């Protein structure tokens, strides 16, 4: 009973962590028009950079997060350049390209950072636990929770209150219109992919202290992000956040309350969400 409360809190925190990881993917798909299967690799790259750079001080942690974000942004830039030539060729070609990039990138990451599982060295203040309403809870997760909320707020403000955000939303709705006001929609696409990569790098830096980073990180991160993005409605940021919290809760409260079905739980939940949400078929080709 008592445990359920703290587990639910943890589920939401874990969900918000996943939300940052998935946000970049959903933005790339919704606004950038790219199904990016290299997203998990960008996250792993951010994680590796964070793990390699941190030295147990606040300064190194801040620099590491910044570097990871920049590396992710650079990855997004590569992605933008690589997909620019594939416009109008459908998502399968994009999948082929980005899966290829993911495989090549994974090999490069192993060559640079080795095959061991790494974890950043955090400032001592973040390594402990605190009492939350009478329960013990890790400080690093609370810190990530705070950052996740911050990112969500900033993301919302940028998307809805700034000129850049309006341009992005306008590009999704009507590309010709954007071109009409003198902005090349392709520039907007590229900017969105760079931002999406930056989010992936940031997500990697934030998750690594909690989960570590190794050769399996990219696959797990990609699978979870895909599930979240699809459940949240492709391209919708609030949808992704809601879906991420759902996945977080399923992966925490769900697996301990129905242990017998634990292996099936996540995938089944995704299938149910997709089926329940389905729109009438005729004429609908997403």
């Amino acid at each position, binding site marked *: 009973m008592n445990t359920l409360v703290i587990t639910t809190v943890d589920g939401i925190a874990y969900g918000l962590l996943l939300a940052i990881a998935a946000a970049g993917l959903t933005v790339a798909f919704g606004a950038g028009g790219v199904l990016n299967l290299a997203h998990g690799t960008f996250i792993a790259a951010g994680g590796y950079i964070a793990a390699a750079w941190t030295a147990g001080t606040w300064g190194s942690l801040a620099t590491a997060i910044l570097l990871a974000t920049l590396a992710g942004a650079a990855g997004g830039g590569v992605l933008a350049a690589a997909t620019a030539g594939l416009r109008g060729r459908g*998502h*399968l070609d994009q999948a082929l390209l980005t899966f*290829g*990039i993911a495989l090549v990138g994974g090999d490069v990451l192993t060559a640079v950072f080795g095959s061991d599982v790494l974890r950043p060295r955090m400032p001592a203040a973040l390594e402990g636990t605190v009492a939350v309403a009478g329960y013990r809870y890790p400080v690093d997760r609370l810190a990530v929770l705070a950052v996740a909320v911050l990112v969500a707020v900033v993301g919302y403000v940028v998307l809805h209150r700034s000129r850049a955000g309006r341009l992005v939303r306008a590009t999704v709705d009507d590309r010709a219109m954007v071109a009409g006001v003198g902005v090349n929609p392709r520039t907007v696409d590229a900017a969105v992919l760079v931002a999406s990569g930056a989010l992936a790098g940031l997500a990697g830096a934030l998750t690594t202290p909690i989960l570590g980073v190794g050769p399996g990180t990219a696959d797990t991160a990609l699978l979870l992000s895909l599930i979240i993005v*699809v459940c949240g409605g492709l391209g919708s940021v609030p949808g992704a956040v809601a879906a991420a919290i759902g996945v977080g809760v399923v992966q925490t409260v769900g697996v301990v309350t129905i242990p017998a079905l634990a*292996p099936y739980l996540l995938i089944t939940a995704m299938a149910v969400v997709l*089926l329940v949400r*389905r729109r009438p*078929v005729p004429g609908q*080709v997403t």
Partner: protein
Amino acid sequence: MRAFTQAVAVARLRSLPMVAPLVVAALAIIVVAVAADPYLHTTVARMLPFALLAVSVAVVTGHAGLPTLGQVAPYAAGAYLTARLALTGIDLAIVHLLCAAVVGAVVAGLAGAVLVRHRGTVFLMLSLAVAELTAITAGQWRAVSGGTDGLAGIPAPRLLPGLPPLLGDRTVLLYAATITIAATAVAVWLLRGDRRMLLTATRANEDRARASGHPVNAHLWMVHCAAGAMAGIAGTLLIHTHRWITPADVGFGTAALVLLAAVIGGARSLGGAAVGAVIVLGVRDVVAVEVPGHAPLLVGALFVIGVYALPGGLTALPARLRRRHRRHAGPHAAAPPTAATSVRSTS
């Protein structure tokens, strides 16, 4: 040599463009089989189940226009059923093939009843769920599947009662190639004429097909079932060529590799899909052994190069070359762009 002249005669007699690639495939296999090298035989034989699975994926993805990761479900059903039959002493290959085709069709029918109501990315993700659930079930259902380590040492099948089991490397290769080519030929034959037109029309404009009175979802479901039967047969071949299986062989990894192999091949061409699968496995299992540890790098590079060098896939290459040739010949000779060249925009 006689086989060659006969085959050419048959091809000329029918003058069907569909027959030529199959003949080429058969000849390639014969060339391989003639070589006195068991390692080569084993290597090629090992690729064939995967190639047939890619063909079944191409039917669903290229023709029905539904990008699928879910064909591993009937593949798994066919494979594990074959393994169980062989382990209980039923070792006739034809029994395995028939049972696997039926169970493959049934599994694909059940999954398809849900899947074919959806399109595009939602279909893709639902089929991803099917793939994941297949691998998880294969790992959990220990009594049937042997758990996450799978099954090993599965007895070899027999072609006829009383004949020795299919063990020789060359025999297994010829047997697997015969089944693969025959199944592909049947699929090509079934997907000709009106059926092909109907699927093309559905892909191009589903509303219009529906408005013209075609029960689109029912058609797609039947295609899905038929492709499932083929995947089931591919599952049998997996057991007959490997004689072991693990859940990873029927999971997301295999599904993704096969789908991308079909895309490289040119998703609408069944033969192209099979060739794409052979290329992907050739890079991963043959070329990459020269640089141990870098198979993912080479496969990744293959995908990236494939996207840029082969728009429309391998099978679109001849048409592109011809067009380029004509363009060089003079502006007046340039062929008008046809709908057929804008391949696979499925979502």
